[in-house]
């Protein structure tokens, strides 16, 4: 299939349809409105369900009801809207429901702004709502990767019967790049939903999909069942990309999403000047590639690990935990819609090369 130039938001929408998800619920919020607009046009064509709900609170719960049918369903929103969905996300995690939620992040906290940011890292990777649960979190850095991860996400949601979240900054939603949709989307065998989906109690005992367990023993069981799923994700789902990682590097950059692309440009330009720097780009933010980062950080020549984010050092905490003091972990970031330029990244790298003991904390 030929490549077509698509806006990230529209590519995400089409990828879902190509992955067999024709059910979508949404509430308008910038910068992801194109998804809903695209789905409002497309879903009637493919016989799916489209509904603009009255709030993100309602939309999250519509997802809950829809997922209970055993069919694929997803929603998209942006940071403040994702906060409102946390109630339903916690319930769906507790009730083991497979759904996909896309967060095209804007700056926060509060109403914040509408420009690109990565400030929902904690919310996405540490649960987000109440209770002992996690989401499987994927972070694309190109529109093609957004398409690929979107298609994969439904598979992962069903494999683990757990909500999957894709987080992209505003650029991932607004940018246009050429994309290709696989002609045939084949998936490895998935566990059948015959055993849990709500289809009416015909010829079987009635089923209840719930997250309520007033008996502490049963709630404990449910929490450890969830925990076991996350442990399995850590064994089977870690995804990352290494870029120009070489033994002679003195600095290891860790960055994700669009920010990682900006780092790539900086690294390419430094390489031309004879300065060699490597980049580690986590693609799964949960499970986090801690062991893989630790292995790179502990290599002999590495003097500093430099985490670069469009937030005030959120992923840095996971990198700190991965490296466990084996090497210094430094941070550089900008927030609120300011996006570090390749020049700014280069400047920070050169500072660290000249003075490895420098602290870089902010723009």
């Amino acid at each position, binding site marked *: 299939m030929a490549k077509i130039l698509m806006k990230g938001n529209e590519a995400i929408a089409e990828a879902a349809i190509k992955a067999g998800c024709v059910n979508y619920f949404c509430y308008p919020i910038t910068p992801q409105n194109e998804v809903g607009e695209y789905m409002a046009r497309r879903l009637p064509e493919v016989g799916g369900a489209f509904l603009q*709900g009255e709030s993100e609170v309602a939309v999250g719960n519509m997802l*809950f009801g829809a997922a209970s049918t055993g069919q694929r369903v997803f929603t998209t929103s942006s940071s403040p809207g994702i906060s409102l969905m946390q109630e339903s996300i916690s319930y769906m995690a507790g009730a083991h429901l497979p759904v996909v939620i896309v967060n095209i992040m804007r700056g926060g906290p509060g109403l914040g702004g509408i420009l690109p940011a990565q400030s929902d890292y904690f919310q996405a990777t540490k649960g987000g709502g109440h209770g002992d649960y996690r989401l499987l979190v994927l972070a694309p850095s190109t529109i093609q990767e957004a398409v690929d991860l979107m298609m994969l996400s439904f598979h992962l949601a069903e494999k683990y019967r757990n909500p999957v979240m894709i987080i992209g900054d505003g650029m991932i939603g607004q940018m246009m790049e050429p994309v290709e949709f696989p002609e045939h989307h084949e998936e490895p065998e998935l566990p059948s939903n015959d055993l849990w989906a709500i289809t*009416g109690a015909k010829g079987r005992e009635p089923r209840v999909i*719930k997250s309520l367990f007033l008996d502490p023993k049963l709630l404990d069981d449910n929490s450890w069942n969830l925990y076991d799923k996350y442990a399995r994700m850590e064994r089977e789902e870690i995804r990352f990309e290494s870029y120009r990682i070489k033994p002679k590097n003195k600095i290891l950059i860790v960055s994700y999403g669009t920010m990682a692309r900006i780092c790539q440009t900086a690294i390419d330009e430094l390489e031309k000047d004879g300065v060699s720097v490597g980049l580690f780009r986590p693609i799964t933010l949960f499970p986090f590639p801690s062991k893989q980062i630790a292995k790179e950080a502990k290599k002999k020549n590495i003097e500093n690990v430099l985490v670069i984010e469009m937030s005030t050092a959120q992923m840095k905490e996971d990198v700190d935990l991965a490296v466990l003091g084996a090497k210094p972990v430094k941070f550089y970031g900008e927030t609120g819609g300011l996006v570090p330029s390749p020049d700014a990244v280069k400047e920070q790298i050169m500072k660290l090369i000249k003075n490895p003991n420098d602290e870089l904390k902010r723009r």
Partner: protein
Amino acid sequence: MNEDARTLFSRPESLNEVVTHYCPGCTHGVIHRLVAEVLDELGVRENTVGVAPVGCSVFIYKYLGTDFLEAPHGRAPALATGFKRLRPDMMVFTYQGDGDLASIGMGEIVHAANRGEKITTIFVNNAVYGMTGGQMAPTTMPGQVTTTSPGGRNVNDTGYPIRVAELLSALVTPNYIERVAVHTPQHIIKAKQAIRKAFTYQKEGRCFSLVEVLSTCPTNWGKTTEESLDWVESRMVPYFPLGCYKDPETAEVPDGAV
């Protein structure tokens, strides 16, 4: 057994044989039974999903023999919407109390009703938060003593009880909305008719339907069973008039809507 003996009264198939957890004098059990009878009569038990609320009736799934979803507080209409949109062939109903529907879930019920979702809502109004121990609800009567209105509900401070049937019937969308009560056998018969009509409209794919049922809470009202039944008649019915508020058969679309 006498050969002429006929069964006049038995447990509906849709009602499970379990010991009730409801307090003595509470009419949730009556309402559960009415829903079960209607499901039996329409022959839809095996094609129905209920959505349980948060509140005393959170465990409704233990009593009724249908599939169930257990919703976050107030969100049952949103879950029901999501489910029904994907499975329009199935029957979907929510069962919600006054705190669930008229307080935290007011947004969800208004919009589900306004969209005319083809679902049925059984709205149980007993003028108090039961499960959490008797706090003031949006339907608590003026002067009614609750744990959070110890001097009696002061309408200057907290407004008047919300009349849900009236409020929702103000929407233009042609829905079925009726208020009934279950404090006397006559009222129970009428309540059954309304619940049956609500589910029938859904089965026919016609409209959103809601039956508000005035119910009792002797425990949190601090009354005996008998006093509670009397209180429904003397205090609640005058403020919450019974009857059909909207019916798609007669609903009119105002000028300018087309």
